[in-house]
């Protein structure tokens, strides 16, 4: 009986694991190998031409000290820090407002889903249009800023566009967290004479933390892999907004698989390091959390 149950579970799970092994694990291992090879012709020890791939050890990783990689690394970091910070603050604010709204709840919920639903590539075009030299953004602020050309202003434009699209998503997740806080807790705080500010910092924030941590983790993962938005909004290979993903992609499509894979592996290591630190600091133990909640229910 028990053995039958195990077999049944294994049968149900294996197709998914097989697919993920093919589309995630294999490319990952293959990229790790690729990062130590170069493509193209070379000469062997006897002076014969050899075609195909050559093992070069860590030579592809030499690009890590190059200007282009350092720039992409800095851009990725700046984008991630700025957008996640803005989205968290705005998202929490939106959730607090939506939680208290009595009239027009449906309208607010529907409109908050719109930025999430607009495809990132389309939102890139949309913001590119808003940020044109003769566009509506300059008309509103009464300046003539060339937002979509190389420079700090391009970074800012990307940060604004990304925040617009994803702050509502954070808001939705936080709102769901707010809705499961029992009203009794707030009544007790009121009886104890807590101010609105104290109630927020001491009660709302700690109780909504599990939902917020998950939302922020999702955002960090997404922001670190950012590609579509700068690509469509500002353009291909634009130095001031080139992210690590864009650099990896650009190298791969120029058939420089070796350096592309090396940069990609470093990006994975960077993401893993940040997730590790984040989970350690905030205790975002997603699965253990699910288990303990189950136990309480």
């Amino acid at each position, binding site marked *: 009986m028990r053995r039958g149950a195990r077999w049944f579970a294994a049968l149900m799970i294996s197709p998914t694991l097989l697919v993920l092994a093919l589309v995630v694990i294999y490319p990952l291992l293959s990229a790790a190998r690729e990062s130590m090879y170069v493509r193209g012709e070379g000469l062997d020890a006897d002076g014969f031409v050899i075609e195909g791939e050559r093992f070069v050890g860590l030579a592809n990783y030499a690009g890590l000290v190059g200007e282009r990689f350092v720039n992409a690394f800095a851009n990725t970091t700046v984008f991630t820090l700025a957008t996640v910070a803005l989205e968290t603050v705005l998202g929490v604010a939106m959730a607090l407002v939506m939680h208290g*709204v009595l009239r027009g709840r449906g309208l607010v919920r529907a*409109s908050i889903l719109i930025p999430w639903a607009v495809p990132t*590539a389309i939102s890139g075009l949309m913001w590119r249009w808003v940020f*044109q030299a003769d566009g509506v953004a300059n008309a509103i602020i009464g300046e003539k800023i060339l937002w979509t050309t190389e420079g700090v202003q391009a970074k800012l434009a990307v940060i604004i566009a990304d925040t*617009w699209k994803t702050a*509502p998503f954070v808001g939705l997740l936080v709102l769901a967290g707010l809705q499961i806080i029992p009203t009794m807790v707030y009544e007790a705080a009121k009886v104890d004479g807590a101010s609105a500010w104290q109630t927020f910092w001491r009660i709302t924030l700690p109780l909504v933390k599990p939902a917020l941590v998950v939302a922020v983790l999702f955002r960090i993962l997404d922001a670190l892999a950012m590609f579509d938005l700068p690509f469509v909004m500002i353009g291909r290979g634009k130095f001031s907004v080139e992210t690590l993903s864009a650099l990896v992609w650009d190298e791969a499509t120029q058939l420089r698989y070796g350096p592309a894979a090396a940069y990609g592996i470093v990006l994975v290591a960077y993401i893993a390091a940040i997730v590790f630190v984040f989970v350690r600091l905030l205790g975002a133990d997603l699965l253990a959390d699910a288990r303990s909640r189950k136990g309480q229910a």
Partner: protein
Amino acid sequence: MKRTLAAGLIVVYCLAPFYWMVVSSFRRTSDIFSTTPWPSPPSLENYAAVFGGHSDFGRALLNSLIVSGATTALTLVFGVCCAYALARLHFRGKNLVLGLIIGTSMFPGALLIVPLLKLFTELGWINTYHAMIVPSMSFALPLAVWTLTAFFRQMPHELEQAATIDGCTRWGAFRRVILPLAAPGVFTTAILAFFATWNEFMIALTMISKADMQTATVRVAQFGGASDFDTPFGTQMAAGVIVTIPLVILVLVFQKRIVAGLTSGALK
């Protein structure tokens, strides 16, 4: 009053840029840079341009539909079985497996594409639908398993016991009892997976070089972007509206389900 005002601000924040895209799409090319809050006079010129000429945007929409539809269907078949086992069967290492599956979504698409581009080139898969469908599973499948597992966990524990007492096998209990009851959750997951693949950009951009195989998101981004001076903004906005409208309709019709789907994984 203050709350209503704040809620109004949120609505404006979310809708204003989108509204601007819609308004611009209805302007004539000659007054595309106009900043009036509505198009005067309104014109369908841009929409005619999207479908007219040699851009063949209808084909791009069809390609998007095929790729998203196929990816969603495959993802659901695999994801439903896997999520059911993870949520409702008892075996060792369950949380480890769930953690591994969710963990795969940590790897950036740009890295996974490097070896896949090389492999697909060797296999002659470039410019095919499967070159887009297969890599899209890398993000759609973890998303589906994550959402579905949360849905399956919410169902009462006694369902399988009752089914087994009534003489169902394990597979029978899953297929005849659990699956029909889980239909709303499966449907919600289907919407989320469809959204994710419809919005996909990088894979389609990389694996496709022939115009008639491009998906809509890639097609729009490449509308006349040759030089900065004559970018057909009106046409781009009209195409952007067309690509987004199916999603907006889905959002309006199924907003409660979508919110439940997005948040259930994060809360349970």
